[in-house]
């Protein structure tokens, strides 16, 4: 069984220009007691999805800090992923009537992967419900096992949670992205905010010519205010609500609206929502509905950097990391107070929160009328992300957790 091979080394020193030499020196000091210790990350996919995206950067950076880290992916057939997709939705609170055979499929693939994965590292981090059953490999070893849950477990379907909970309670701890996503568990629960990588294609600085080229390609006028929401075409992101807010703002400001999301061609519901959005936008050339390719980080980056205001008007949200992406680019953000957004947008400090279409429109009008306040919010938002939501902070949290589990805090 081969671990995931990461294409290239990522020099940790590159981050000194972003976070400062002192912060980097401290990361190395924290990592020193862990030099040569083994870490294994396990998830269910090597490509696509936020977890794979972050592990692609996290693993090489951990190697730079002297950890012996590997990333393994569990395998499964279509039947397994159909079951775990249903589990995923059920854990998010959607109604579900599991067939007992679903649990058998889950157990069978867990057994298969228990035979193929080594799972013998000192620290084993299991991501999300799909591989949660691998805790069976722990037996009586002294290894430290952590379950990293990236989804909102606040209102899970009881049948699925009752099945998973016995696995989860055998771990040494669980990590959640927000306190409200956690459950009452007998094991310690930790809060790790998701993080962005400031040097990735989605977030790094871009030449102005590239940004201008992207605007020109999509016929966006760089001289008029640009309001942007980047999100997949999903009703929970309320793209039609964004259009309604834009129409209110348009009465006062000659602005444009960009709604950009990944391709909806392989997602029946996404395609339906895209049609609704196109219908709502019909007849207004200042609304650009952009169906971007599945992986278009540079275009997303350019659209965010070109924006006057970034909107995230979700009705429900996980953490909503696109907010941190915008704040990192010093953009004023107007967003809904749902999920993990208020952690990123501290109202009136790092952005503005709203609770309705009208509220969203008002906050946008306010910022367009007060560019100096918008700029200040953007600056503070950038500082907030730098302090709390960068991948280097995530590294620091994992190092701190490993030190705590290994019991050698205090040197």
């Amino acid at each position, binding site marked *: 069984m081969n671990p995931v091979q990461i294409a290239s080394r990522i020099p940790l020193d590159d981050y000194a220009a972003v976070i*400062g*030499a*002192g*912060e980097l*020196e*401290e990361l190395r*000091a*924290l990592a*020193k*007691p862990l030099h040569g210790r083994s870490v294994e990350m396990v998830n269910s996919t090597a490509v696509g999805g936020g977890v794979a995206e972050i592990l692609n950067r996290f693993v090489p950076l951990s190697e730079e800090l002297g950890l012996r880290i590997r990333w393994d992916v569990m395998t499964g057939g279509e039947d397994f992923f159909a079951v775990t997709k249903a589990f995923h939705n059920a854990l998010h609170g959607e109604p579900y009537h599991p067939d007992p055979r679903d649990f058998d499929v889950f157990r069978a693939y867990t057994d298969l992967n228990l035979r193929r994965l080594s799972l013998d590292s000192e620290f084993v981090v299991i991501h999300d419900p799909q591989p949660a059953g691998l805790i069976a490999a722990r037996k009586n070893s002294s290894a430290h096992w952590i379950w990293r849950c990236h989804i909102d477990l606040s209102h899970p379907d009881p049948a699925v949670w009752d099945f998973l909970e016995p696995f989860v309670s055998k771990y040494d701890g669980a990590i*959640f992205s927000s*306190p*409200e996503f*956690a459950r*009452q568990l007998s094991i*310690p*629960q*930790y*809060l*790790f905010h998701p993080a962005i990588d400031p040097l990735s294609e989605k977030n790094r600085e871009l030449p102005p010519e590239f940004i201008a080229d992207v605007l020109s390609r999509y016929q966006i006028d760089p001289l008029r205010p640009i309001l942007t929401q980047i999100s997949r075409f999903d009703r929970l992101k309320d793209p039609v609500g964004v259009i309604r807010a834009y129409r209110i703002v348009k009465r006062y400001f000659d602005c444009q609206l960009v709604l950009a999301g990944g391709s909806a061609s392989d997602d029946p519901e996404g395609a339906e929502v895209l049609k609704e959005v196109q219908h709502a936008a019909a007849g207004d050339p200042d609304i650009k509905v952009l169906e971007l390719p599945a992986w278009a980080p540079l275009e997303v980056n350019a659209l965010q950097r070109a924006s006057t205001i970034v909107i995230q008007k979700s009705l429900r949200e996980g953490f909503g990391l696109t907010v941190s992406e915008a704040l990192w680019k010093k953009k004023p953000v107007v967003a809904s*107070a749902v999920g993990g957004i*208020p952690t990123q947008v*501290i*109202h009136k*400090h*790092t952005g503005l*929160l709203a*609770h309705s279409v009208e509220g969203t429109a008002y906050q946008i009008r306010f910022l367009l009328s007060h560019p100096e306040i918008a700029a200040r919010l953007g600056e*503070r938002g950038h*500082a*907030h992300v730098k*302090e*709390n939501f960068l991948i280097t902070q995530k590294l*620091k*949290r994992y*190092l*701190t*957790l490993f*030190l*705590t589990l290994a019991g050698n*805090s*205090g*040197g």
Partner: protein
Amino acid sequence: MELDGTRFEFFTVAYLTRIGNLSAGTLAELLAGLEQCSDASIFHHTFQTLSSHHFLTEGFSNDFAQWVLADANRDALAEQLAALDIRDYPSIAALREDLCRVVRAFCEEHPEFARQSALERFYFCESVEVTVPFGFAAANLDEFRDGISRLSHASFFFNFISSRLRLHLRTNDFSHWLANGLGLMPLADNINRIDIYTNTLDSARAKLLRLLDRERRKHEPSADR
């Protein structure tokens, strides 16, 4: 210049946030939580949160005040909670007492607001602190300045603000060492007066380094002659 004294050893500090089992949806529940939660929880929502939001110098003070403002919509109570200066508290017990006193007084005065539901719940968390030796120590002002300039925000805050809880004094690690290790009492006092609420950690550190530089200049050979 050589100033003799005990060495100042630099540490790096990092925090894990542990999610607790308490939460509050009303001011009355916030008060109950404040009375019951662990010391590590009070520390997390006051000291630790000030550190991680140090760049906000206009009114952001602690998580309790922010929640009361943004979710419970009680501006006057939020202002009272924000006005509590953590530097005045050499113990978590004393800080908890004042937090409870302020919220209790408000709830007694406005019972109609005490049970009103907030927009979002407040979740009590705890800080787990890990310290690791940084690998360098200072024996004189030059080395001390170099060490301070290399600290991360979290470690600077650990020595400058949360040290009060360790020392049980209204001072900080830096001033304590300057006064007791090097006998530089006026410098120690000046450093202790730097306002952490109206400065970011970067600007507070810049002020501290300027004070150290001024002191170092006093002891340069030309100044001795």
